[in-house]
């Protein structure tokens, strides 16, 4: 999983470099500072989900299945909220501000970078939800905690990437 994270980090690096390189190079509007608003609330959701997934695995190791399920579901809820936030932002950008992926360079790089991250969140949510299904089917046991730790590692990575994306898109880029 560390290797996969290394490979994913390299992919994100390339997209981040492209974003930074193209800041202010768009030939036409809209510009980032006119349309972007930092999604503070949804960022807090995503980052705190890192905490809940960690607590959930600790509970599983301790053998407390009910607490595990609570924290694990909370993680999914927080991740889902974050995705909802991204979706709402995109709807606003597309229908109110008229920014799509082919409008200008800002649109291209913005949707690619944020979209790539949202794709990873989606993948993570699917994996997290699969665990919930296993839990309700009664197949999840304490000895699986090692695998869930690997999955939570991936989730931490997705959160950490968001810190970088947030910094690049909403702080430096705007």
């Amino acid at each position: 999983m560390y290797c996969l994270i290394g490979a994913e980090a390299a992919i994100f690096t390339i997209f981040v470099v492209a974003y930074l390189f193209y800041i202010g190079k768009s030939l036409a509007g809209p510009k980032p500072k006119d349309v972007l608003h930092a999604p503070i609330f949804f960022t807090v959701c995503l980052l705190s989900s890192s905490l809940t997934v960690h607590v959930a695995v600790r509970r599983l190791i301790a053998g407390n299945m009910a607490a595990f399920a609570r924290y694990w579901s909370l993680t999914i809820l927080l991740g889902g909220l974050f995705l909802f936030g991204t979706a709402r932002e995109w709807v606003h950008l597309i229908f109110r501000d008229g920014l799509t992926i082919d409008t200008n360079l800002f649109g291209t790089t913005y949707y690619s970078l944020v979209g790539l991250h949202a794709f990873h969140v989606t993948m993570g949510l699917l994996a997290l939800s699969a665990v919930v299904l296993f839990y309700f089917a009664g197949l999840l046991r304490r000895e699986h905690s090692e695998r869930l730790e690997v999955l939570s590692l991936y989730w931490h990575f997705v959160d950490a990437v968001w810190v970088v994306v947030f910094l690049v898109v909403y702080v430096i880029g705007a």
Partner: protein
Amino acid sequence: MSTNAMVVSELPVSRPFTLRLHDWVTTVDHKRLGILYILFGLVFLLAGGVEATIMRLQLVRPHNDLVSPEVFNRMFTMHGTTMIFFVAMPLVFGFANYLAPLMIGARDMAFPRLNAFSLWMTALGGLFLYFSFLGGSGLYGAGSTPDVGWFAYAPLTAKTFSVGHSTDYWILSLLSSGIGSIGTAINIIATILCMRCPGMTLGKMPLLVWLNLVMAGLVILAVSPLSAAQIMLLIDRYLGGHFFDTQAGGSAVIWMHFFWIFGHPEVYVLVLPAFAFASEIIPVFSRKAIFGYPVMVMATVAIGFIGMSVWAHHMFTVGMSAGANTFFVLSTMAIAVPTGIKIFNWLATMWGGKIRFDTPMLFCVGFLFQFLVAGLTGVTLAVAPLDWQLGNSYYVVAHFHYVIVGGILFTIFGAFYYWFPKAVGKMCNEALGKLHFWLFFIGFHLTFDFMHIPGLLGMPRRIYTYEPGRGWDIWNLIVTVGVVFQALGILVFAFNLIWSYFRGKASGNDPWDAWTLEWSASSPPPVYNYAVIPRVRSRRPLWDLKHPEDPDWGYE
């Protein structure tokens, strides 16, 4: 032995073809997957070779009209893409897959199913690329196969300049084989770090394993940016993005950076396994332990690090700033140092040894000499002012073929002759092997030695024909004549593999009197490799077994 061995030997000898095929297609065994990788690479080697031959026949004399300029463009694109992604990479991964678990005393790779997935993703990539012959046009009048060059510079790949689907097949092909490569790299690293047998510390791993570990790390750092760049190109072509669209403020140069951030480490991805084969074969055939093992490991890791910071020496002619040029000149020259250390260590290994010139050793000696020359022309190209003169000329083509054919392919041939007995249980025919070596050696030098000269005389690469009377004619003729010898060599090689598979004489488990663990398994090794997981105490465990009175661990 164990009950496992009994069960295996009781299987009926001749099972129906469909059942055996089913076994191979659904296999997750690292040895079978390794062999599939290698067969896959060999098939594409023939395809890529045919494309190269077509190009050389076209260039044999001035104003030749064997193929049209459009077809010529397709041929050099397909040749480059095929040889790098579907010949060199699968061969390298095949050997790593086959040998790494055996050499570290493991029963399989860490993730057998990921291993199979990676193989079939790579195969899918090859299928995409060659399907473009049929499905590439998409539009009436558009070209069939990709014709944008193997590094596919923007804006040639934009929808405007590359109509139809040929470029899309190129993108998909590299994307899916890239996923396969990353999967295999993850697998190799996990296997080597987690599954070594008791006693095999990192400092006692065979050099082949060390080099493949660094190779896999480079794959992860290099192939991922390529995949990212392919995704961007797809966004440009299908969603109307502007990453590489200069009309909308995008940059064509950033594609070059993204491609070569992959492209140059890729050279080390391919050459490190070549070093790995040389580091195993040369000691065994010199009857001496490798000289300077820790330094070899350090040089490998140094190459891995420096190799990540030399990419823009492919871009001196683009017009970068003086600062950038200076940095990449210096880093490129710096990488010659660890490489030089390796060459001296191989020479020191041979020095004073009782050298046996069997076919594997012949290829490795050829490699040593040719790789040195390739490195020296590389240093000349690293000098930015000289590169401004020679960039994009046949001098560059000659240089990198010297690396890839003279260096990498020669050791891969050596590796075939060296490990064929292990995989099949029969020896390769030695006379045919020597014939293959000499034919290929002569052909290689005719082609690629003389290819430097038209480059120095100013012949650019990728031209489909040229004017007579520029002093290029005779050199092009010699270059093409060399291809005949190389093609004959390859045919002898293919015949040798097939003939030896059916008729070769039995090899026994350890035909070369070698020292690494894979030679202690039977030939071919059983599915489970080792009934009892071995324990090692030195870098040459089989030496310790054969010479209990003077074991290696007394000295290390």
